[in-house]
């Protein structure tokens, strides 16, 4: 890039400027292309902003009509006159079912991830990873159909067993009837988020430093000690963010909950008795009967869900961003 070659080739021309971004952007083709691609990036931001703005707008319309307290009312009569609705029961149901899903899914998912990354022979591990990828692609409505028509009838035995031995706690009391409760929803959500939590954790475990593992082995550590001392500490933040990605998915899941849960607007001390509801399920179930204010009320509850998932996902991404090498976006 010195003056020498240019000087010898074309001494009369002014020396060309270096191929910096600024320079090439002066060509019309480059300007158009840069404009287009930057425009799409901005369009994405505008869409995100528009989602927030429009949902907030309709929420304000709905809240102006609401005769109850939006946060504490145990009722959803948005189509009545005057409309009364509150999200207390929905928030409770959404959070409880997602927590059940996390408690059930995360240990198993970490187990599978370890199985694929450190335990299974290579011949099994590769196809297993492939199968987990495929399972992440099964549409949620199919989980819902399976949950409603296969899982629910098969859970009665487990419910009776829980009631028999743990019914005294109150949390696992069961009064009979179809097991369409928050607990069933939690189990189904656990099965649904298993693939994504597994995928992200597996990526992290695979990147644990080989040297530390080999050093531990050389010192005579057993395989479990290697995992506990070299793999898990390295992967901890990855597992946390994987769980939060799973949590984000569980919070917003609609169809699987709508098909399995038999909702009502009561907070039930027992997890096994039908009742409760979740944000997404309430929207899907109540939409067709909703009038104008009813729709706005549902949008208001959707905004709450949007904010919650935004916080959870944002936190997960921030944890992931600390380690740039892996991201769960393609999982």
């Amino acid at each position, binding site marked *: 890039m010195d003056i020498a070659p240019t000087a010898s080739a074309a001494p009369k021309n002014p020396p060309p400027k270096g191929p910096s971004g600024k320079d090439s952007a002066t060509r019309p083709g480059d300007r158009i292309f840069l404009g287009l691609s930057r425009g799409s990036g901005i369009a994405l931001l505008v869409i995100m902003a528009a*989602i927030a703005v429009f949902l907030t707008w*309709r929420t304000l319309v709905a809240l102006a009509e609401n005769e109850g307290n939006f946060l504490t009312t145990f009722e959803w009569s948005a189509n009545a006159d005057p409309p009364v609705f509150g999200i207390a029961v929905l928030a409770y149901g959404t959070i409880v079912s997602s927590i059940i899903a996390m408690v059930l899914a995360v240990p198993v998912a970490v187990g*599978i991830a370890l199985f694929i990354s450190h335990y299974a022979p290579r011949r099994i591990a590769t196809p297993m990873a492939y199968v987990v990828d495929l399972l992440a692609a*099964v549409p949620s409505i199919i989980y819902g*159909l399976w949950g409603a028509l296969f899982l629910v009838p098969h859970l009665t035995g487990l419910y009776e067993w829980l009631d028999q031995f743990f019914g005294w706690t109150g949390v696992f009391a069961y009064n009979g009837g179809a097991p369409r409760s928050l607990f069933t929803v939690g189990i189904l959500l656990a099965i649904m988020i298993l693939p994504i939590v597994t995928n992200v954790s597996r990526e992290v475990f695979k990147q644990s430093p080989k040297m530390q593992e080999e050093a531990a082995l050389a010192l005579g550590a057993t395989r479990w000690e290697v995992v506990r001392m070299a793999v898990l500490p390295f992967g901890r933040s990855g597992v946390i963010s994987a769980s939060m990605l799973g949590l984000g998915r569980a919070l*917003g899941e609609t169809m699987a909950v709508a098909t399995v849960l038999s909702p009502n607007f009561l907070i039930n001390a027992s997890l096994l008795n039908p009742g409760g509801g979740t944000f997404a399920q309430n929207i899907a179930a109540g939409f067709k009967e909703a009038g104008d204010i009813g729709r706005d009320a549902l949008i208001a509850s959707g905004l709450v869900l949007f904010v919650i998932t935004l916080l959870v996902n944002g936190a997960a991404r921030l944890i992931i961003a600390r380690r740039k090498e892996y991201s769960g976006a393609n999982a």
Partner: protein
Amino acid sequence: MSNAVMDKPPVTVPPSGNTLKQPRLPRWAPAGLALLSAGAGAGAGLAFGLASRVQWGLIAAIVYVAATYALTTAVEGRRQAKDRLATSLIWVSFLVAVLPLASLIWETIARGTKVLDGYFLTHSMSGVITLQPGGGIYHAIIGTIEQVGIATLIAAPIGLLTAIYLVEYGRGKLATAVTFFVDVMTGIPSIVAGLFVLSFWIIILDFGYSGFAGAMALAILMMPIVVRSTEEMLKLVPNELREASLALGVPKWRTILKVVLPTAIGGITTGVMLAVARIAGETAPILLLVFGAQSINNNPFEGAQSSLPYYVYEQWANGNEASYDRAWAAALVLIAFVMILNLVARGIARWKAPKTGR
């Protein structure tokens, strides 16, 4: 690395009466124990008259884990026992997870093939009484193809250009913001995307329910997936290619169009196809925006349509055997569609993998 460890001179051990070799369980011990505990599970199941095979399996698993732990502690010592305990727990967690997923696939195939035939694929539900068998998913297939097609037409170019911006141009605050919000956008629940289009397209702009409204919501869900996968692929294109092209005096935009994109095209196609597979199964936005229809509507811009996932939900909601059969059959078609798309996409990825130049 491992060579360096191996090269060290062997540590001399002071001679002692004990042999250095630890007592170990024979190689066939885990298999033998597994057989034994399976027998114990079946025996206990028969003895107590437990009907559910799942209970048998659980008893067998508990017996296996406990027996392995006890035996290894006795023969090999605590540390080895803990190692075996962890190994068996990990194997058990793997089996526990595979069980429901295998059952899901099995049920869908077993129940779905019952009414799935040529008639089912080529007829709509128009004039079919829900209680009776008959009818089909032709209108739903049309709806899914049109909605997903429009969504792809909207989302793929925007997603592609955004990824190009992030990889080829993006520096500074705007790029950071776009990266972060693309990540956050991946986590938007599908029902929220549906509510957004509902509030702005149907409530405020006062358009009716249509396939196009659903397609917009699907496009919102699809964009971040396309951006992320395309971004990963563009990053794999070696810088030497770009530099060579720029050094020949090719403008940057032509470099991107003629050198970078063709190199990464396999991966980009894969990403778009995976995104299509993801949104093809979305029900919630369709429920809110397309509203569902019983008869064929070829026009996505006007009037209610149906779609495959919506059809599954609708038939399930009817709540009778004939409808359940139709729901399973449609679920099978949907799952087959998604799986084939996935397999083809991954095949393309493998076939056209960019050479990283290393």
